[in-house]
């Protein structure tokens, strides 16, 4: 079940519509943009995997500080290198689409923010997260003291069971209180 050359079969299209939150137009647009990323030889192969560097050239991802983590989370490759097939790409767009549920979005947001993939957000994850948010150059980071104060504030607010980390339920508890999350956790082609 792979994508053929440059056309998307009708039954495949309807299957994708059923399995994702994307509309028909969005799937076709995604297909078009994905095939633009492929080289000439790759276009004929089914189920090609696009390396992460090419994915990151997409304008929607280029300025996103979490772009590498996003590719990593949605990638199904065995080498964990962040490369995406077309179906992974659709997965990505589906989770970031307008109609995805809050649960899906919060789940994936948690995985994106979990930099060490251990299932919880501990101090190291939070520090990397804050650094991603404030900017990626050295002069935009917070000082160590500010970082420490900030992280202790975060943990005091969201770590309900006081184990020193934020797990998925606690994360979802914070997210569910903010109505802006669903509208800002969106990537539309």
């Amino acid at each position, binding site marked *: 079940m792979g994508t053929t050359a440059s056309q998307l079969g009708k039954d495949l299209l309807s299957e994708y519509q059923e*399995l994702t939150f994307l509309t028909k137009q969005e799937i076709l647009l995604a297909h078009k943009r994905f095939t633009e990323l492929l080289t000439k030889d790759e276009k004929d192969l089914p189920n090609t995997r696009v390396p992460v560097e090419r994915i990151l050239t997409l304008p929607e991802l280029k*300025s996103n500080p979490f772009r590498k983590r996003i590719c990593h989370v949605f990638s199904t490759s065995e080498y964990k290198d962040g490369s995406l097939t077309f179906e992974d790409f659709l997965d990505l767009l589906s989770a970031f689409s307008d109609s995805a549920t809050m649960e899906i979005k919060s789940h*994936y947001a948690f995985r994106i923010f979990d930099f060490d993939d251990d299932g919880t957000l501990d101090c190291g994850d939070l520090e990397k997260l804050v650094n991603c948010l*404030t900017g990626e150059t050295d002069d935009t980071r917070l000082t160590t003291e500010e970082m420490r104060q900030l992280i202790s504030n975060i943990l005091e607010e969201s770590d309900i*069971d006081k184990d020193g980390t934020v*797990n998925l339920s606690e994360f979802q508890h914070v997210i569910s209180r903010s109505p802006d999350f669903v509208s*800002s956790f969106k990537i539309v082609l």
Partner: protein
Amino acid sequence: MEEHNAVNFTRLLSDESTLSTMSSDSCEYYQTEIFDQLPSIQTSRLGQDRQGLWETCEAHQGGPEAGERISHGHLSRGPKDKAFTQPPRNLVMCIQGRRDARDRRKMQISNIGFWESWRRSQSINRRRVWAQMGEALSGLLPWLHTLHTIEGRFGVGVKAYFVFLRYLVFLNLLHSALLWVFILGPTTLYGRSNSSKPLKFGGNDSVLDFFLGSGYLDRSPVFFSFYTRGSLNFQCLNTPLLYLAGILIILFLSLILVVRRMTVGYKHTWMLGKRYSMNVSYKIFCGWDFTIQDTTAAILKHSFIRNDLKLFLEEQSFSLREAQRTLGLRVRLYLLRFVLNLLVLSLLGGAFFLIYFATKTSQQESGHYWLFSLVLEYLPPITITVVNLLLPHMFRKISSFEDYSFTMQVNATLVRSIFLKLASLGIYLFFIFTTRERQKYSFHCRENMFGREMYKLCIFNFLATFCDTFLLKYPRKLLQEKYPSSLLARLSGKQRFLIPFKVLDLVYSQTVSWVGVYYCPLLPLIGTATLMATFYIQKFTVLRCCVAEQRMFRGSSSSVLFHFMLLLGLLMAATTLGFNLYQQEATQNENMSSCGPFGNGETVFNVTGVCVNSFPSPAQTTLRYLASEAFALPLILAEILILTSYVSRRRANQKAIERLKDMLVMSSSDKRFLVKQHATMLRSQRKTHGVCSGAIEEDAPHPL
């Protein structure tokens, strides 16, 4: 065995609970073997492990079997049924996994039976139809592309302003539709009374009438006096009654819509108490806006977030400093604040006096040059607008001296500006009510005079917005671009789109529209047109003339405040209307109103009284009872009872939350303790393995 700490039900801090009595290495917890196999960790890793996925469903069906597949967590938290009625796209896994889940579900369906599968497919189809309808409806909303562009360049806060503007456009359209049905429709269909003046260009009419609201416009459908009782003359169905019903329905509907939006917004920002405030976690977890595609916008967002975080940390240290203030310092500060508040009050008083002076001046007769008389007529609106333009900025400066935290400063400025805007409008209305010189003029219609003032306010608001953009902002921007180093450019600085003030303007114009709708029924139509024009003008301002504001503005938390302002405006409109009707009733003898639907000695109460009298007697007595004071007391009592029940329920819920949190902390520290014990026991067993020779393989208890 070592003894655990004595039973201690206070909530532990994170440092304490990561240590166990047996081992002192606190990060070991996450590196133990059994940690990966805990069900809670497995659930969060669901999508990553495709292998585990396929077995998950079967394990879930048979219940987790000890000793076999404890390691794989369960698919859904809810009842088993939920996993199967959820559409495959709602599952958190990759597309291949969802395919397999769907295929498995299809296999399941053959075991379930006809009724169940029919029910499921029906619910799926229904959901799909709803989703399609919702999509179609949201595609119909106008200006989507503009909003998307604005969001990308300026962030969610500025977009929230434009969304609010669009909402007001729809509200005004709805009002206009109701107007057509209740007021304009019957008048067109059933005509007016014979004594009303015809609608033609007369001798004294001029183009100025469109600005002054006199002459031609005075006789037109724009104002109150046009709608007289026509051929529709039943007891309970006549033009005056329809007119009144239309206005009341407009106000009532607006009340419902505004209250609904306000409560929805309030629920979102509802904080159960200081302990549950999620300020900084929210800023971090929901901080990044994934819709940003532009590199400059991204850099801006980074600096927003950084500034916001620094602001938060600064405010924290501020509150620490505040707690450490000495008594002397505190007294001095309170004195300073008192003086500044007096200053604010005196500024407000001065503004009100200016408005009174302008109202008095504009009512003087003038046979002067037409331009001068135009300016004189417009003097009150001009004064109000100038006052509303200058004073909020002065309040901003004043609040910076009061040594509040930044959020407090913004809120204080906002509250003062709201008070200024609404009170200046209220004072103006009050002056119009109490000054009666106009009566001596040729206009016998008080309602028309009132409507004319509201019309002028509305027109002038729009003109002010227009001139502000094209005569102030755009030249300033050109100046910045062409001569950036000149003195004027450096003095004026970069322009910012100050959202709170802009929203205040919108709320103010909507309040004017509500106050004036009874006297000038076409105000909603005018309002729709001006709001749409304002959308494009502000779009031009934002996209061409402004740079992004440095301090981030959070849309959701202030939307409650803005809707509350709308509500206040609506209440003011209702009070004005009620007061006017009451005055009409009280001064019946003097025959104040001789125009419009309630002219010729008929008052509102007369007309409604006639209608009520035509009802059957039980209905009449019920209505009379509902309107009397004897009903008010039980009503108030009932409201008090309902409120008390809500408050007590809330308190009980809060207590339950506290108890649950304590339970959670205890369970979590139990879990950590057990994990550590287990890991330490394993390690000590391995040590004894290492001590004995490798030949002897003891049957160590495996966690699997």
